[in-house]
């Protein structure tokens, strides 16, 4: 590790020092409480801020991909667009359908946002900047992730209309069937690190050989695990190719059809925060958390790297949303159970082999060969009965 001058270490630990400085004003018995409250306030302020930024980024990015300008009316270059959206959703009238089950209808977005915010507790944002360094941090995150399905179901069922119930059923089925590959592909990183704690996983990836970091994504099983994790993460947060539950065309807006005003904004916030937390975990597990990509660059503060990687992940999500068409429900399920599950199980095997094979190129070749062979084979099995010839129009031509 190159010697980092005190200025940079202070910059790196600036938030931790700030927290300790504020804590010093309080009596001793109160300090841990104040520390955690500050951490919570920081997260609750930072991530919705990123959410506001992402809405602008998404609309401008999608616009640019479709050869048009994004919103540029509200504020210079459309920067104040989220403020406008926020005020609009706050002032919009909050209509609750007559037959809806008022209590559950109100609780659904609340449960979703609480569950998603809880997920941020175990996310290591910077060097010793994690809100709760739990021993089983990853398990906590997936447990909380599992409870978001319940809130989606509550929303769908309580609005008492067929479309939202259908959307909720589809969303829950999709999230459950993609949770299995999500967990299995993250078990790979846990297996090699030997601990469920997110901080230990990041530390295990923080070494450098030459100038290249020891990120898991640069190993064959790590790369396979990363792609599987990202695909499952997309499905888990109902985004881009997997946004069938909110299929505007046929399901109006899926499970949040009957929501308007602030509750709709809460769902919107919940979905985006879910995207950030799952992207954060993809970064923690496979992209070295807050580690610098090159040893030379490690003077830049750790939290800056985390947010830079989060920014790249968000841009990737937007890029995917601008490109890929929506998957049909059966293709979605087929893909999960026939491709993702076998691949992640095999990935576990390959990671085990990786751990017990001797160092050096031999294990690289073996692991990558196994994974590539499986990829091609499974791919052919999946594509067997699809005739992907040129599209023929019955009447057009």
């Amino acid at each position, binding site marked *: 590790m190159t010697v980092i001058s005190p200025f940079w270490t202070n910059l790196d630990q600036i938030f931790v020092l700030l927290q300790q400085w504020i804590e010093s004003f309080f009596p001793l018995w109160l300090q841990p409480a104040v520390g955690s409250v500050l951490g919570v306030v920081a997260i609750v302020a930072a991530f919705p801020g990123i959410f506001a930024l992402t809405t602008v980024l998404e609309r401008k*990015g999608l616009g*640019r991909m*479709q050869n*048009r300008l994004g919103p540029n009316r509200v504020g210079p270059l459309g920067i104040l667009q989220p403020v406008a959206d926020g005020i609009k959703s706050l002032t919009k009238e909050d209509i609750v359908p007559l037959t809806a089950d008022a209590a559950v209808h109100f609780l659904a977005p609340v449960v979703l946002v609480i569950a998603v915010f809880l997920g941020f507790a175990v996310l290591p944002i910077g060097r010793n900047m994690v809100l709760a360094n739990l021993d089983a941090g990853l398990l906590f995150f997936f447990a909380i992730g599992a409870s978001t399905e319940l809130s989606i179901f509550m929303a769908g069922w309580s609005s008492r209309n067929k479309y939202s119930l259908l959307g909720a059923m589809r969303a829950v089925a999709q999230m459950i069937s993609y949770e299995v590959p999500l967990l299995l592909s993250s078990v790979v990183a846990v297996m090699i690190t030997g601990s469920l704690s997110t901080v230990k996983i990041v530390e295990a990836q923080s070494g450098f050989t030459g100038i290249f970091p020891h990120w898991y994504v640069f190993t064959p099983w790590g790369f396979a695990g990363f792609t599987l994790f990202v695909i499952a993460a997309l499905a888990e947060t109902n985004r881009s190719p997997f946004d069938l539950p909110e299929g505007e065309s046929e399901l109006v807006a899926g499970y949040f059809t009957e929501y308007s005003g602030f509750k709709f904004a809460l769902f919107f916030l919940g979905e985006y925060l879910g995207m950030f937390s799952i992207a954060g975990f993809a970064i923690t597990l496979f992209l070295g958390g807050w580690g610098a990509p090159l040893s030379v660059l490690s003077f830049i503060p750790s939290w800056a790297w985390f947010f830079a990687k989060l920014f790249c992940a968000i841009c990737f999500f937007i890029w995917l949303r601008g490109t890929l068409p929506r998957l049909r429900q059966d293709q979605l399920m087929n893909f999960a159970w026939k491709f993702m599950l076998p691949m992640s199980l095999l990935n576990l095997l390959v990671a085990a082999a990786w751990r017990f094979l001797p160092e050096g190129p031999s294990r690289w070749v073996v692991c990558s060969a196994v994974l590539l062979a499986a990829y091609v084979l499974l*791919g052919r099995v999946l*594509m067997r009965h699809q005739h992907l010839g040129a599209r023929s129009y019955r009447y057009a031509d």
Partner: protein
Amino acid sequence: MLGEGILKGLGETAKNFAGSFVSKERLTTVQYPEERIAPIENTRDFPFLVYDGAEDADEAAKLAGLRCVACQICEKECPPKCIYIVKSTDKKPDYVGKPQIYPARFDIDISVCMSCQICVEVCPFEAIKMDTEFELSTTDRFGGLLFDRDHLARSNQHYHKIHPTEAAEVDARLAEEKAKVEAKAKAAAEAAAAKAAAASAAPPVVKPAPAKEPGA
């Protein structure tokens, strides 16, 4: 191979994304209030009545030059029935000087009008044409969108400005018709004069063979 298509697609959108920053002509958005594209030749929004006279003529001059003779064909033909005409009791001379009825009241409810241009096609007197003015938003939903005769009357020059080719054809046709009518009037006048001269030269003689057939 599974996933090839995805990568090609991603490449395509990335090219678009990068391209939109580099080459400006990719972005086709027109910032409407600030930038405007010229309306194409045959855009049509809501009808207006044509009058032959100066652009800034006053009410009386507008009425005098008005081509409409209140024949109510357009009122009957209009599918959404948004034209309302009340005939005038007296007559006024039209562009060839022949006394014609004119519309005492000619209302078009443009909130009902669907710009189908049928009134223009059926009008035998080229009196009603389609305007290209579309920024007509008002606060009053009923009165504000009910245009009366004076509001509808626009000069022929305006017509030339918005539909140049079509206006030219119409003017040519009107001029030719006017010439034909005048020729006939002149011929009729000559025949009348000749008959008057013949009658005065030989009143006692029996009516001679009819004079030469006046110009067809």
